[in-house]
């Protein structure tokens, strides 16, 4: 049993931390958020140059052949700086799906460019009626000649506006909520029949509502096995869940640091407010919540590759439950302890709080994962 980072991982952490510290002060982040894309191509090029885009991919795909530990290291540091660049959507989720289930041709076509920073991905799996049930897919892909035509509506597709390719979950057989019969397709973002509505999110990311109207794709567009897309999607989302949880830990540490500093410097009634026992204990609760979040991300990072899918599912869900809980304690606490300033747009506090809130809503919220964990536990 060994829970410490090795030297390569420590070096990686140092370099990402340095990038965030030096290149991503809050006012810079505000400027990036205000641009049309909502993220910086220059930063993305730097990520490519530093090799961060290749972390989870094999050498023959131009990657470093690293894994979840390294992804968690990167995501936690990104969380510290509320980094807006679509690393989660392109590298972790989209890239993860291609790397695990894609054909040799698809890997060639996508991953080499992705690692060089030339390709952006977005995964279109959510539909309005589905809530957090990944198997609830109405979007259909009907055989037509050698290929398929895809029709349906996908919602809240993160990085949709910038994506060159969409990974689309569509039903090739079975009923609306059957586990079997879902197939993943790799679709060119400019394909005929695709219309997008783009918008910013509460936490300054970009996403799209996407309508697929008889979008024709070839048989080569199928990712992995026909009708067997759900297991690939679910595993990829479990990994992305751990990654977004690591980001949340970074957010919590940043919020706690800011709040801690505020308690020491803000004076009322002639003393720093950190002298008031009730605020001290609330800060302790926030500190403890962040510690627990960090512990659960560590747990899930180390269990996510377990051969037993139940171990993996329970790890991802337990982690997301903790992040939902801790994120609320830290986020609401930071706002409350900052008083009026905490609810203004001016301070970064409200932006970390918004990010933590939205993180809870992505890939299944606290309740969804508590139920999922409970069903696996009671089985």
């Amino acid at each position, binding site marked *: 049993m060994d829970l410490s980072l090795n030297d390569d991982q420590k070096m990686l952490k140092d370099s990402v931390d340095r990038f965030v510290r030096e290149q991503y002060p809050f006012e810079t982040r505000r400027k990036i958020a205000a641009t049309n894309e909502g993220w910086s191509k220059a930063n993305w090029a730097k990520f490519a140059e530093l090799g961060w885009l290749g972390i989870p991919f094999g050498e023959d795909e131009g990657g470093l052949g690293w894994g979840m530990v390294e992804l968690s290291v990167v995501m936690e540091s990104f969380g510290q700086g509320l980094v807006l660049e679509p690393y989660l959507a392109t590298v972790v989720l989209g890239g993860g799906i291609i790397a695990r289930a894609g054909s040799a041709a698809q890997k060639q076509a996508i991953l080499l460019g992705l690692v060089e920073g030339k390709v952006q991905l977005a995964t279109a799996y959510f539909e*309005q009626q589905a809530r957090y049930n990944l198997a609830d897919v109405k979007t259909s892909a009907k055989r037509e000649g050698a290929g398929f035509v895809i029709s349906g509506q996908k919602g809240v597709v993160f990085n949709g506006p910038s994506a060159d390719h969409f990974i689309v979950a569509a039903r090739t057989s079975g009923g609306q909520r059957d586990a079997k019969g879902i197939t993943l397709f790799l679709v060119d973002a400019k394909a005929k029949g695709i219309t997008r509505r783009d*918008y910013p999110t*509460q936490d300054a990311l970009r996403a799209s*509502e996407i309508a697929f109207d008889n979008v024709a794709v070839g048989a080569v567009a199928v990712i992995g096995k026909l009708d067997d897309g759900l297991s690939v999607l679910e595993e990829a989302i479990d990994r992305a869940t751990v990654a977004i949880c690591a980001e949340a830990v970074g957010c919590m540490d940043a919020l706690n640091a800011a709040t801690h500093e505020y308690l020491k410097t803000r004076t009322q009634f002639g003393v720093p407010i950190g002298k008031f026992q009730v605020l001290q204990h609330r800060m302790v609760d926030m500190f403890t919540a962040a510690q627990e979040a960090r512990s659960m991300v560590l747990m899930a990072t180390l269990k996510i590759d377990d051969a037993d899918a139940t171990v993996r599912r329970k790890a991802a869900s337990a982690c997301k439950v903790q992040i939902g809980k801790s994120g609320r304690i830290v986020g609401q606490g930071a706002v409350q302890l900052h*008083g009026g300033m905490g609810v203004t747009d001016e301070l970064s506090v409200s932006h970390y709080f918004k990010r933590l809130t939205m993180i809870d809503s992505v890939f299944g919220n606290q*309740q969804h994962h508590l139920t999922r964990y409970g069903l696996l536990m009671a089985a």
Partner: protein
Amino acid sequence: MDLNFNEDDLKFRDEVVAFVKAELPDGVADKMKHGKHLGKDDIMAWQQALGRKGWLVNSWPKKQGGPGWTATQKYIFDNVTAEMNAPGIVPFGTKMVGPVIYTFGNDEQKQRFLPGIRESKVWWCQGYSEPGSGSDLASLKTRAVREGDHYIVNGSKTWTTLAQYADWIFCLVRTDSKGKPQEGISFLLIDMKSPGVTVQPIIMADGGHEVNSVFFTDVKVPAENLIGKEGEGWTYAKFLLANERSGIAAVPHSKKGVQALKRIAMSEQQDGKPLLQDPSFRDKVADLEVQLQALEFTELRILSAEAGGGAPGPEVSFLKIRGSEIQQRITELVTEAVGYYANPYLPGLLWQGSNEEPVGPAYAHTAAPRYFNTRKTSIYGGSNEIQKNIIAKMVLGL
């Protein structure tokens, strides 16, 4: 003991219903129903209608132009108007400065200021908090120096709600810096059009503009705008706070909120069934409804104690605490209910009342902004920590 309304109460309720039907513009009710942003005109239209009917300053004594309602009538009015999507009454004139003026002001001040409040012709805002004085209000620094028949005011106020609409501001200012901080504070009325008054918006986490910083640079204020005695401002401020707390539980408002939450949870689907039928989510909504009912009956007990001659006293601080916690919980559960569709941020729809199509269900895009915004309710008007200090000290004597 009896929970039922008597015949007069029932008649009164019908009268209120008829009034709202006749006087509340559909557009305003619709904005309220969908949690949209209200403009100044929306609010003024409704408040002036109430003013014409004599119902605007409904907590004022009869001799000051109040309707002289019983606690039950007040309860009926608050619940019916909220139920019918009428906007809440802006408190700065009606609940705050008005009572201060008719209690501590002179006759000239009463004649000059009260009619504009009763009829909602004049918009007031509150100049209390300062950048350095939040929970510790008494440490305020805005100075008012007497020069002849004027005061010269310098300093700044913050968190000034809707100052951008205001004609007048009532301020706590320091007229003497000797002695305890509570001493040397005076209560001054300032015309917002006075030279040297500038208003700077503060943008909130949800992107909205409802509070402001107000700066005073050598602002000349006629001495006749001083309420009561110089240096007695703290007494008037405490009196005002006590008044303000009535209705602070916001029960009728939260009842509407819980109704909306249940509507949303019925329309949100999970595995083809309404979310409200998910036992875990249903538990949370049921628990919230129980919390709200406990708050409502606690408020009723306090009101009936008042009516029975018993003084309400500082226990009402927990109406503020529980009221704010419940408002926050409603917005938190709505955000949980809408799931992924809490993410899209649509400022046009939220603030400019544009007609663009919402993303996802029409109710979804306001969920997160309201959740973010409602965090303020446990901070403003004396944070919940301060409220608990008050109960510990005044009620429990600890």
